[in-house]
């Protein structure tokens, strides 16, 4: 359950940064991204999948959230 900092990059995409691992990846897709919630299954460009219970209301980035590693 790492703490993940989500921030926007210059082109408006979301970056997924795990400080402990010094891992920075771009988020490829988010399951729930509406005006009243953000979260669910998150897939990164390197193919790894993470999960967070949808946060409501959607957080303003940058922010630190706790993610779970999703199966598969």
């Amino acid at each position, binding site marked *: 359950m790492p703490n993940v*900092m989500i*921030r926007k990059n210059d082109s408006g995409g979301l970056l997924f*940064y795990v*400080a402990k691992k*010094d*891992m*920075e990846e771009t988020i490829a897709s988010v399951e729930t991204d509406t005006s009243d919630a953000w979260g669910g299954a998150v897939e990164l*460009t*390197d193919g790894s999948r993470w999960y967070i219970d949808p946060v409501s209301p959607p957080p303003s980035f*940058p*922010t*630190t959230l706790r993610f779970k590693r999703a199966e598969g």
Partner: protein
Amino acid sequence: MATMTRDETQALIQEVLEVYPEKAKNDRAKHLAVNDQSLEQSKKCITSNRKSQPGVMTVRGCAYAGSKGVVWGPIKDMIHVSHGPVGCGQYSRAGRRNYYTGMTGVNTFGTMNFTSDFQEKDIVFGGDKKLAKIVDEIEQLFPLSKGVSVQSECPIGLIGDDIESVSKQKTKELEKPVIAVRCEGFRGVSQSLGHHIANDSIRDNVVHNRDNDNSFETTPYDVAIIGDYNIGGDAWSSRILLEEMGLRVVAQWSGDGTLSEMELTPKVKLNLIHCYRSMNYISRHMEERYGVPWMEYNLFGPTKIAESLRKIAAFFDETIQTNAEKVIAKYQAEYDAIIAKYRPRLEGKKVMLYVGGLRPRHIIGAYEDLGMEVVGTGYEFAHNDDYDRTIKEMGDSTLLFDDVTGYEFEEFTKALKPDMIGSGIKEKYIFQKMGIPFRQMHSWDYSGPYHGYDGFAIFARDMDMTINNPCWNSMQAPWLKPAEGESEAPMAASA
């Protein structure tokens, strides 16, 4: 313009790896790569930030070096106690040439060495009492110091001293920050973790100190220079360019920096980060906590300077943007003259770099401005995100090496035959004895500054003076020189 093809470079790596035992070979193979500009992510080609193999020569430092030597050390109005045996502090004292203004020993302490000089009894009975005494002595002898940081050396972690409680108590007593930094040398694989630990301790102890204090008058043009250690005056030659653009530099992290500058940094509009590797952590924190955006920039060589100044200006309004153009135009005659003077003398020369956190990619632009080509580059302690940024800067099918070993570096040099090598003091004399011009690129070989337009003039002069030094024609002993008319004997015969 690549001098070697992909396959040739790959073959070279294979050949160099041949001497290693199977296991070491497999490990080292992951750290050596041929650059491929089409790749987006470096982790597909190179592994970094891993423990060095036992038995190879590495030039990495330790966590203490990253914290005391790099991040905390240059903060001039604090006293940084090397807590532990005397050597760590003494042998790293003032070696990085972080210039600063002030009266050393009165209100600034940069080049001094403060250590608790652990003896056997301190290891056996613990050194907490000694630390408390030291902090009191510091307060008595140097009342103008703004705070104390306790930089742990290895034994502190091993014997389990509680430096946090001493620091907490002394902070209360003296009403000055006394900051415990757990940067014992054995932590992590290189100095990189030391940077992270130091950043975290600044985050926990310094950055939030003025959260409820609005007495500082801000302007819309406040910026902070982050990750510039003022080596040979680098931060100063960067700072004047930003100030000429109309920006106000509130803080310098940490070369020539002070504690109060650091406390004021969350109030700036933009953090400018030069050394990404050592200070991205604190920039990320300030972005999240205070909403201060950060931006990487590069002030080596006119091309990159112009690019960076425009990028910085784009963040502000039109006055700054016109000012940026004015600054670039103002210095154009100056740097055109430098390029006109040195480029003919340096054109086509090949350089190999092996330095620390940002230079293996940042300086490439400056060499290219002088018509030189970087044929191989590598970092001591970079992570994958550094290589991500390097791939685009380096030419295709050039060599990338991570935490290169002494043996590999020498072999690569023999094969690629660069005209110059830029690396650290530990490599300097090896390569000079091999007859290859060398610049010590950690502290600019006791020269500098190299940042900014003023720095570029010095950079170009230094490169010329190194490569075109007449001594390189005298590498062969006079009695081994062929007589008139005979063909020149190969250099290797005399080596």
